[in-house]
């Protein structure tokens, strides 16, 4: 298996009034193509920082982050934007759809930036909406859709440019548990059916349980990296074992 992304001793510092705050203390992590995994950790653990770096929204202060073997530090802003556009699909807790645009236009938006022609864009967006189960609502605006439907639109949007990596930040956090389960099943289908690598950032053990691998972050360090055992999901015994 080849590594889709690899972090090698990644450090991230933030300057604050109190001085320099170190959010990540040398994180090393490798994710292979086709993996279905969760990054867990309590708030303030540095998991959001890690997600931003993996998603190429932020750059590490130290260490190396490679995406498909390319050191992201060597890429220009424009190249990073292209990577976010074509290589990575983002799914957010609050869906982050553009309220003015229809479901179809939201799904088509990444293809606008990658230069896909209008006709092809719309037909592809329609197919994607159908594949996530809401092909009957292309003209609806986000405000006319339920939370679950909005998250499905967001998933369809993330798949627009057939990315290598789906990066989901608390994707079920704003959904009721039944809808949450459906969205997770959708991820599972994408992973198994199309071989999309899925990384879910969450603090919810029930979400992480659905994955094949759990990485626990605490105080800016990798605390656990392995299968989703009960101990890994809840973290208690790990903390006890570490102390």
């Amino acid at each position: 298996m080849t590594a889709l992304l690899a972090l090698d001793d990644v450090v991230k510092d933030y300057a604050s009034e109190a001085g320099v705050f170190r959010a990540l203390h040398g994180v090393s992590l490798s994710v292979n193509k086709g993996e279905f995994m969760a990054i867990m950790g309590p708030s303030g653990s540095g998991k959001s920082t890690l997600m931003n770096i993996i998603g190429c929204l932020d750059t590490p202060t130290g260490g190396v982050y490679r995406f498909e073997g390319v050191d992201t530090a060597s890429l220009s802003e424009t190249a990073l934007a292209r990577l976010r556009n074509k290589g990575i699909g983002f799914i957010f807790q609050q869906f982050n759809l553009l309220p003015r645009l229809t479901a179809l236009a939201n799904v088509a938006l990444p293809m606008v930036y990658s230069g896909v022609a209008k006709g092809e864009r719309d037909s592809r967006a329609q197919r994607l909406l159908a594949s996530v189960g809401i092909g009957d609502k292309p003209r609806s605006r986000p405000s006319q859709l339920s939370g679950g439907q909005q998250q499905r639109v967001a998933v369809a949007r993330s798949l627009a440019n057939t990315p290598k990596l789906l990066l989901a930040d608390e994707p079920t956090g704003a959904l009721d548990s039944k809808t949450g389960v459906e969205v997770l099943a959708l991820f599972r289908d994408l992973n198994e059916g199309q071989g999309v690598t899925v990384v879910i950032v969450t603090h919810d053990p029930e979400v992480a349980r659905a994955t094949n691998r759990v990485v626990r972050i605490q105080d800016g360090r990798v605390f656990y990296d392995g299968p989703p055992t009960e101990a890994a999901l809840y973290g208690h015994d790990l903390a006890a074992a570490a102390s």
Partner: protein
Amino acid sequence: MIATMLAEAWGALIANRLRSMLTMLGMIIGVAAVILMLAIGGGVQKEVQKSISGLGSNLLIVTAGAGRQGGIFGGAGSGASLRIEDADAIAGLPDVKAAAPSTSLPAQAVAGPANWATNVTGSTPAYFLVNEWQAGDGRIFTDREERAGARVAVLGQSVADKLFGANDPIGQMVRVRGISFTVIGLLEKRGQGFGGQDRDDVIVVPLTSALRLLGGNFFRRSIRTVSVSVASAEALDGVQDDITTLLRRTHRLRSGEVDDFQVANLTAITDTLSTTTRAISLLLAAIGSISLVVGGIGIMNIMLVSVTERTREIGIRMAIGASRAAVRLQFLLEALMLSLIGCGIGVALGAGIAFALSGVIGFDTDVTVFAVTIAFAVSASIGIFFGWWPATRAAKLSPIEALRS
């Protein structure tokens, strides 16, 4: 991509209809002001041109030199230096269409019980040609009548009104200095001249008659002015020089002696007037463009608000792959669209007001393609200039910060 971005920019403006309209209002008023000012300025210019051409186009006026008695100048034209033969000689010069010798004297005109103090001009039929003046009623006198010294007169409108009122003056008698003239024609109305004088307050009689009957026998063959009509504007300067050379020779003036005549060129007046009116319309346009700049600042203001409001949207767009250039372009297009739509409405409004106004102020206003082109070009520049900073601010946002907002 541009088409999609234009559609999105349009969507963004539509989403905030009222705000977009209010923002555009600045541009609308600015553009309307500029268009209106240029239209009025252009109209004034045309009007001035029209009244200048009413003086007779491509006209040179040769005046006799000042007469002098014991060192006291009698004023231009008072001398006896200009003679009818001079007019004939000038008429023979190349590029000269016609030359009309004339003399004029103030006189009391009497018709029946009515009388009126006016100017009596004696000239040849060429006078009407040179001054582009025709009889509106009746006829002007012929060369034969002129040479014969016929006692006929052509009246200006004002004189006819004073002497005959509503009656038809043709065929009636007018007495000037005790001599009776038969009215044979009534001239077209010409209106006021530049000094505000009434150009219709005149009686024109044959030059021979004026010299024989009215001027006494003092200056028999001498005249005050020769009006010269030149074939083209380009030939004016050449003809002016030719006349000077000709008259100096025929008047036997030695080099060093001053001219005993003047040749006046009306284009000098024309040029001054058009320069003045152009300056006025430029000034008006400049005042209008100040409001354009204010409109541009309004656009910048609202674009800054818009960028702040839509920080999250910008973050989302960046996360799904919008480059900074694409974000900047999006906001620039919105600013550009605001200014250009504002400009379009402003042009329509300005042209509409100009059109409505021409009825009120009594002369045609002039909305030119040039003015409209300038308005659009300036508005586009303003949109880009004042949209640049907000758009750059949007493009410089950090995606993480933007998403967090």
